[in-house]
């Protein structure tokens, strides 16, 4: 009936404070964009420049806390082609979310700080930080990029859903702001989007508050919001952790449909290797703030090279496991404020040699697209662009 009446307080038309992007009031706001716009970075090895949508080189994001410096993202390189799905995997706390949040520039700064790296999106430089230069495009431009070109699905929906506003308001506002829809149109579109992500009875749910939704329903509200702006780059951080397999399959299909229809590129963070196998073209494996292996999907499962990747693949319980205990990688992830010297994985590695304990392993190329950072993996050694130009070698 007259359901709108009970929401007078929250539906004030001028109140647009709820834009997710506005929640990010604390972001790094160095605006020198008007002064100089550096040309885009060199494409990564062997790739045609035009094919690359996103190129990240030497990215470093640290947190300065009273207990020391957390090196959450510590010299990370990767790229994503147009229309490609890149998987990002790695042990909990290794820096997957902070890496991708750095791309969209939604890391709180301070305590966080971008300490290095170059990010290029579709030929446009979003960030270039090295010894002589600190360039970040303005927060205003970044906001428009987040509304139009990059969509972000957060790992924990409640970090970005506002508990005091109805779902309809939360989905509508970016559409009113970025796509110039009227309130009425946006409300209608919200219902359609909820339907798309298979939420039953969307006409009712759109008028609910987030706390009255189940975990998976909240996650799907986030997904609906992210798909709405038809982005060039979709960053999906554990988007299906709360979804059952059937709904998960439907949501994955929806993402693939976007990829096929408008050639969206996807950065897909998940610990679910089954989903990785089904969705991704290439995979980047992280450990303690570093990329340790990157490979096409087929190689990752058939011939994982890095000892950490090998441990990861063999830990997975599957529907045919009959063992009493699950495999684990012995030891635990290092504290990112106090990283061991050499290869960060060496204290847990079955292959570790003396060299691994003192020297950080550079990337070795096994095949054109299969790179691994490990002294014990054979292949041609490559010196990455970032190491030479940004810092002249790995700090001890």
């Amino acid at each position, binding site marked *: 009936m007259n359901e709108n009446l009970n929401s007078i307080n929250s539906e004030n038309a001028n109140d647009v404070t709820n834009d997710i992007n506005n929640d990010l009031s604390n972001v790094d706001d160095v605006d020198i964009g008007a002064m100089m716009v550096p040309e885009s970075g060199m494409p990564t090895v062997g790739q045609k420049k035009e094919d690359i949508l996103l190129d990240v080189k030497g990215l470093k994001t640290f947190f300065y806390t009273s207990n020391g410096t957390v090196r959450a993202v510590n010299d990370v390189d990767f790229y994503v082609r147009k229309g490609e799905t890149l998987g990002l995997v790695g042990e909990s706390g290794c820096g997957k979310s902070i890496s991708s949040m750095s791309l969209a520039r939604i890391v709180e700064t301070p305590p966080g700080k971008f300490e290095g790296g170059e990010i290029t999106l579709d030929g446009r430089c979003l960030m270039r930080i090295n010894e002589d230069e600190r360039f970040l495009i303005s927060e205003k431009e970044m906001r428009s990029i987040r509304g139009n070109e990059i969509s972000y699905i957060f790992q924990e929906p409640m970090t970005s859903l506002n508990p005091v506003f109805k779902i309809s308001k939360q989905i509508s506002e970016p559409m009113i702001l970025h796509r110039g829809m009227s309130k009425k149109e946006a409300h209608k579109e919200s219902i359609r989007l909820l339907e798309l992500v298979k939420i039953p009875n969307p006409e009712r749910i759109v008028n609910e508050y987030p706390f009255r939704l189940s975990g998976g*329903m909240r996650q799907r509200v986030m997904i609906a919001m992210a798909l709405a702006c038809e982005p060039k780059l979709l960053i999906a951080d554990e988007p299906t952790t709360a979804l059952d397999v059937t709904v998960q399959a439907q949501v994955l299909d929806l993402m693939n449909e976007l990829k096929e229809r408008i050639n969206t590129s996807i950065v897909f963070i998940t610990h679910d290797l089954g989903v990785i196998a089904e969705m991704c073209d290439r995979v980047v494996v992280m450990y303690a703030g570093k990329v340790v292996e990157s490979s096409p999907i087929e190689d990752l499962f058939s011939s994982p090279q890095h000892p950490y990747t090998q441990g990861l693949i063999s830990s997975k319980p599957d529907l045919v496991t009959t063992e009493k205990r699950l495999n684990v990688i012995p030891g635990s992830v290092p504290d990112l404020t106090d990283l061991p010297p050499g290869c960060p994985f060496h204290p847990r590695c079955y292959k570790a040699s003396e060299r691994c304990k003192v020297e950080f392993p550079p990337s070795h190329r096994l095949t054109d697209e299969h790179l691994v950072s490990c002294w014990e993996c054979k292949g041609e050694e490559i010196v990455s662009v970032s190491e030479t130009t940004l810092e002249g070698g790995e700090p001890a």
Partner: protein
Amino acid sequence: MNDTALLEVKNLKKYFPIQAGIIRRTVGHVKAVDGLTFNIKRGKTMGLVGESGCGKSTTGRTLLRLLKATEGSVTFDGNDMLAMDRSKLRAFRTRMQIIFQDPYSSLNPRLPVSEIVGEAMMQHKMVKNKREMKERVNEIISKCGLFAEQALRYPHQFSGGQRQRICIARALAVNPEFIVCDEAVSALDVSIQSQIINLLKDLQDEMGLTYLFISHDLSVVKFISDDVGVMYVGHLVEYGSRDKIFANPIHPYTKALLSAAPSFDPAARGGKGRIVMEGDVPSPANPPSGCRFHTRCPHVEPICKETVPENRELEPGHFVMCHKAESL
């Protein structure tokens, strides 16, 4: 069979009112949990699976009286949970714990981890002083794969999976007998997930812990559970031993659910072998008549649309809510 049941649930219902209009008149109900009956034996694990929004979390919360049940009974170790007064309930709180699905909103952002995990130990006088509390906290969080130094940090300074482990540590801190694990390992990578699952299993072997393990990850559920319940729109449509459910699922919904599990093998990409369920997921605010699955069931017959199927015990301990169970 009931002699050793630690938890007995009979005909449990939880309805949420739907309110509308300026005076917030109740215009209907979300029948989130609608008549659940099951037991969990001491020292055993029951897995609970089902589509998103089917009522799993609501079941867990209602059992622990974090939500008020609409109808039914819950007996824990011989005590009527739903009739208990507040002071008795408080004493029971340490015996029954929950690991919430959403760590972010269940952790107090203003407290450091040491307080979050240690608070209840202090409150219930399980430790003598703050120093002892700190020691206990460090011991528990390191079992969960965190560092003692991290105990001084606040929840927002952790990653998603680290926050989830803080919740696990908090639940384990008070030496409970029964834990509702609501998607407790779903944000964890496989290695830490395995470490936590092994920890839960060890505690079960050593101290006889009992779990209700809610998860959509079928391989994990299969690994950890003794019994498995399958929910669909507020009903428990199939319930039985793990081996029965996985090797010989009977209910058409269970079959579809199992067939949709993503395969670990990139060769099986593209959803080969999935039973794709047609039709929309019904809403618990307006559930279908008769069998709630009839709108999507490939075996539907006229009776399915009219009569709610009984919960029948097809074999000892294997319950199915389907008119055609025998012929499937």
